[in-house]
């Protein structure tokens, strides 16, 4: 099957023909990158669902996770046990997140602070700037990359880097574990309870401030996992977290704030739309298709695909 690609701009000197193999490659590539996008976004929506604040420094936690993985794998344990590096990076960023939450976020929940969302916005944006500058000072201006995690492979028609394949599988594993944690453990159910009714869960004798701290740590650890898994693929530099920030927020708006299944669905949709938009319309404007989709969703369903309208008593 041959399909003419259309809508090319003046830089694209000629029209291609696209066969079914190419389309299948684009679909597979879209699914793979879409699922990876979901991991970048999961932490943002998880923190929001518990604490009702948006962590704007999520991309910087992604960056910290990547740098930690680089140090652990390249300098300490070697690439053969890269997965231990991912776990250690997650633990490191989890602890960093708990510390940040305790120092900077918790105080606004303790008193009768008005406009918590604005406070959180300022605090987390400032934190992001701080992390980037620390990275510039600590790591210098150079681009880093840990060695690839695995040999190149093939998913059906698509040749794929070993690292991207590992990130794809790793995302499935992490999201599955995260789902099981939420559904099957006491702490997970407590976190769900906090997401539904913060006052209610306090009446049951649960320390909601401690849950906030854990939720923030888990959320940023998920971002760190994405950073650690993708470090050899997308490279490390002080602003590499912008990738996670841009895609993460795009996904949570499409999904609806606070919807965890929605994040998975929106990530896959975004990956597919970007990929197919590139092949059928114009590859130069790949990111635009995702934003057009986002605008369409906002116009049709302002709360996002899986978001719910707030119930006010």
């Amino acid at each position, binding site marked *: 099957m041959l399909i003419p690609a259309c809508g090319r701009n003046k*830089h694209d*000197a000629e029209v*291609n023909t696209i066969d079914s193999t190419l389309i299948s490659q*684009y679909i597979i*590539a879209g699914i793979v990158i879409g699922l990876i996008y979901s991991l970048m976004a999961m932490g943002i929506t998880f923190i929001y669902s518990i604490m009702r604040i948006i962590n704007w420094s999520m991309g910087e936690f992604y960056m910290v996770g990547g740098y930690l993985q680089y140090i652990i794998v390249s300098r300490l344990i070697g690439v053969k046990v890269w997965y231990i590096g991912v776990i250690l990076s997650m633990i490191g960023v989890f602890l960093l997140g708990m510390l940040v939450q305790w120092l900077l976020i918790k105080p606004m929940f303790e008193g009768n602070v008005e406009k918590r969302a604005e406070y959180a916005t300022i605090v987390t944006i400032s934190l992001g700037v701080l992390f980037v500058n620390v990275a510039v000072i600590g790591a210098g*201006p150079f681009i880093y990359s840990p060695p690839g995690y695995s040999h190149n492979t093939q998913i059906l028609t698509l*040749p794929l880097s070993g690292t991207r394949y590992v990130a794809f599988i790793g995302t499935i594993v992490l999201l599955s574990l995260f789902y099981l944690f939420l559904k099957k453990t006491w702490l997970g159910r407590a976190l769900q309870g906090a997401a539904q009714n913060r006052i209610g869960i306090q009446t049951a004798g649960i320390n909601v401030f401690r849950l906030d701290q854990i939720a923030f740590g888990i959320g940023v650890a998920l971002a760190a996992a994405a950073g650690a898994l993708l470090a050899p693929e*997308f490279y490390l*530099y002080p602003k590499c977290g912008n990738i996670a920030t841009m895609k993460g927020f795009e996904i949570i708006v499409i999904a609806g704030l606070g919807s965890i299944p929605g994040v998975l669905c929106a990530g896959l949709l975004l990956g597919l739309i970007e990929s197919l938009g590139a092949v059928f319309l114009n590859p130069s404007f790949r990111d635009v298709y995702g934003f057009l989709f986002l605008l369409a969703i906002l116009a049709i369903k302002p709360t996002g695909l899986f978001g719910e309208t707030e119930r006010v008593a």
Partner: protein
Amino acid sequence: MKRNLNSFVILIAVFFLVSTYHPFPGQAATAKEPVKIGVITPLSPPGDPAAGQLIVRGAKFGAKYVNEEMKGILGGRPIELMVEDDAGTPEKGVAAFRKLATKDKVIAAIGQYHSSVCTALVDVGAEYGIPTFSTGASASIITEKHQVTTFKTHVNDYDRATTWFDFFLSKGWKRIAVLAENTDYGVGLFEATKLIKEERGLKDVEINGIVFDRKVADLTPQLLMLKAWKPNVLLNIGVGDPTYRITKQAYDLGFFPQVPMMGAHDWPARPEYWKNLGAMGQYMMFINYYHPKMGLSPIGEWLKPRFDKEYGEIPTYMAYNAFGQIVLLARAINLAKSDDTKDLIKALEEGSFEFWAKGDVVQFKRLPGARWHNHTSPLQIVQFSKIDQPIEESIILWPPNMKTGEFVSP
């Protein structure tokens, strides 16, 4: 208490007298007053901070050479560098230039690396009448504006595209795929490549290109499309992290090195190249501005061992170029016998200046088009034939008079 206060006042008075005493007041004050030169370059993302750091290192050695070897300028005045970060963004570059012009009173500014920033600074330099040097920015528009204050000792788009076009034709490569970032640099080089095809009327040469947003991490769809087109060669026109992503992702898709790749500038000559790409970097060809086999001028020979001792690596082109520009400016100021910018511009236009490469002499002439005030050092196309190959062992593929070996493919 009163005694202590008196002692304190006397101490301050003695300190004031000692610090302001000179045997020949007029001469000494003038002799120590530095001549300030601005260095505006990317030192943080989204610019290419690795390039910026190399430029700063080279410029600092340039100041060291002037202050220690030339014993200063205009009878002993030292050069002082004022370094500013433009982060690869025009607005930050313009703000930095205004600060250097109004607060620091610099006599010239060098260090420009990103074409979009340099293009913006060309007009600001003209506004203040301050000579503005492109160290690594190549867009033709920089010198095509014909500002009296604009100077460039770096290749322009057209010369660079001509070099790779001639090489491609010599290899019989007539299907040219281009992946270019959406900056003045990327689009400018893409346009220059197409312009050469049109000018020469080469109907059998096909160019198929995609301009991408340099913030995009995943370039798989773009690369799949170009791969399916079955090109003879892929032009990688990115700066900083996108260049690495193009190379790695093309490798992962089985596109490169099966199809040869040409880097549009000398980024593979940097020490981090092999660390980040490993075996994926083998067979890369790239436009290079300096090859160790070219030889160095006396000032280039002065820099090489000192840079190596300080940083544990030989200088790359960007460091040499920034170094050369500082020394060139110092000699032009001496020629002008003045630190007035109008006199300096006149001296730059009238003088001939030894540069850092062997036999390379710089002259800034008011020539048509992009050749206005533009000096281009000889370009080469080189290839890494082996993994971890140092730049001095890379093969020079082009031009024919410098060729040291044949193109190697897997």
